[in-house]
């Protein structure tokens, strides 16, 4: 079974600091998305279960100057090869544009059974790209997988929907998106990291995929992107634990959220 895993390398959101409500991105490192590692792990486990399989990572460079180092982590986890779409025009793409690029790349790679995405990226978390790629490729899609097994008509997928777990089944090829609960991504050993450098990496530009800057350019206008104004009181009590607890209870009663 050949499995393509589109992954995103995004800024480490935990390292983004806020200054005057503006996000400070200068010097913030990029990393392989947390949920993308779950997607890779799911692909690697399924490939091992089925046997005679290949796992291919695909990424679109959205501003990561060290993209080759970051994608190496996907190879060190166990992906067999990687494709990097590295084109300045991709920086201006929105989710629809990124989905067009990935759909074209998947078609060009060809010979695949499954495309596994994270349910969303760690930074934007819009969840649009997987379903958009499925639609473009005319493929069935199952979202929010917490378990994927080969079987039935192709694969069977469990997904959590409120208080229920639903099992869905689809023919292949298909697109599946996964949540973090599906697995615990493996930690790369030094040996695997060294070996990863020797695995094949292919660079493509938009022209290689018969796309141009206009086709992928964002069609949304960002008006502002600021931290919310903190309107909290930020009172920190002093004194012994006993005194602080008394002060807290008094304050909550005065606020009307606790009954005396």
């Amino acid at each position: 079974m050949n499995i393509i895993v589109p992954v995103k390398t995004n800024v480490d959101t935990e390292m983004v600091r806020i200054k005057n409500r503006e996000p400070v991105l200068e010097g913030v490192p990029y990393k392989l998305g947390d949920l993308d590692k779950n997607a890779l792990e799911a692909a690697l486990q399924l490939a091992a279960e089925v046997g005679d399989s290949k796992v291919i990572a695909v990424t679109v460079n959205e501003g990561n100057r060290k993209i080759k180092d970051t994608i190496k982590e996907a190879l060190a986890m166990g992906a067999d090869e990687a494709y990097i779409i590295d084109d300045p025009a991709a920086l201006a793409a929105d989710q629809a544009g990124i989905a067009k690029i990935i759909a074209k790349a998947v078609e060009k790679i060809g010979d695949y059974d499954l495309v596994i995405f994270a349910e969303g990226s760690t930074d934007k978390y819009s969840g649009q790209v997987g379903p958009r790629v499925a639609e473009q490729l005319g493929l069935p899609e199952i979202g929010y997988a917490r378990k994927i097994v080969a079987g039935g008509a192709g694969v069977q997928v469990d997904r959590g929907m409120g208080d229920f777990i639903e099992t869905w089944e689809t023919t292949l090829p298909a697109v599946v998106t996964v949540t973090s609960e599906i697995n615990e991504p493996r930690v790369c050993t030094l040996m695997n990291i060294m070996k990863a450098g020797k695995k094949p990496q292919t660079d493509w530009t938009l022209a290689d995929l018969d796309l141009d800057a206009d086709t992928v350019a964002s069609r949304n206008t960002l008006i502002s992107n600021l931290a919310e104004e903190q309107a909290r009181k930020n009172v920190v009590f002093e004194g012994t634990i006993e005194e602080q607890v008394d002060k807290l209870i008094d304050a909550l009663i005065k606020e009307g959220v606790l009954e005396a």
Partner: protein
Amino acid sequence: MADILVYSEQLSTAKELTYKAKEFAGALGLGASAAVLGPDASAKAPDLAAVGADKIYVSEDPALAELAIDVVADALAQIAKEADATYVLLGSTRLGKELAGRLAQKLDAGAATDVNAVEVADGVLVAAHYSFGGATVARETIDTPVKVLAVMPKTFEIDAPSAGAGEVVTPSLSLSPSPVKLVGRKEKEGESVNLEGAVNLVCIGRGFGTKEDIELANQLCAALNAELGCTKSLCDWEWLPEARLVGLSGAKTKPSLYVSVGISGQVQHTVGVGTSKIIACINKDEKALMFGASDYGIVGDLYEVLPVLTEKLKAL
């Protein structure tokens, strides 16, 4: 007349969106319509008329029986064309987010998901949603002819509904069954949890040393009549089920009192509690980010603070 078209598989969300769509439609010179799909769809039409829908597109086509995403997207794309919709408002539930991408692609539309505020400005709708893992809020307009917005449930409150014309339309849809089939459905193990509806909420994080210590938080919950939630780490460690996860990838809550215990305060968690009326936090690290997101804070070891707090609350 061009329309704002509303759809959500959750009736309560469809009602909130329809109510607000009518307001937006008035401001933008559009009509407000809604779609209801799947088994028993027609029974839901009057509820949407009551909150402002002028037209309600109803389809119980057998291909929609399981509400498979590809078929729902196909049906809505056809209805959006028939309604000449310029905006499609969806609920940003799991199904709704999945649908947003697929439908937007069919309509060659831009989309925004997890939208938590919508306003009218200069004759268009501006959508707000979190960015950078919750650190900021992005406000954007969508500039394609058709625009898809998936809005978080409970973003809008229905305060003074006025009924719409409520004309029921049966669209002529051409749908094929999905290759994706539902083969089983079982209830999740464990008790059901309603964090979204909780009046009082206690959430716990990595400050807890062992799974057994969660009992301290359970006792605080009992004293406060609160629901228990947690951060992602505790779900990853399988100390608590995913149903108790609060934050970006879990529940977005609106409690009157929120008490954070042993939580550092990363935005990935705090976006799930930002609209609480009052936030109190307990953390032994006075530099914890959580103090900045709180109204009241106690600097102290939770193992010392919780028993005292619980006892004093019980004595009230």
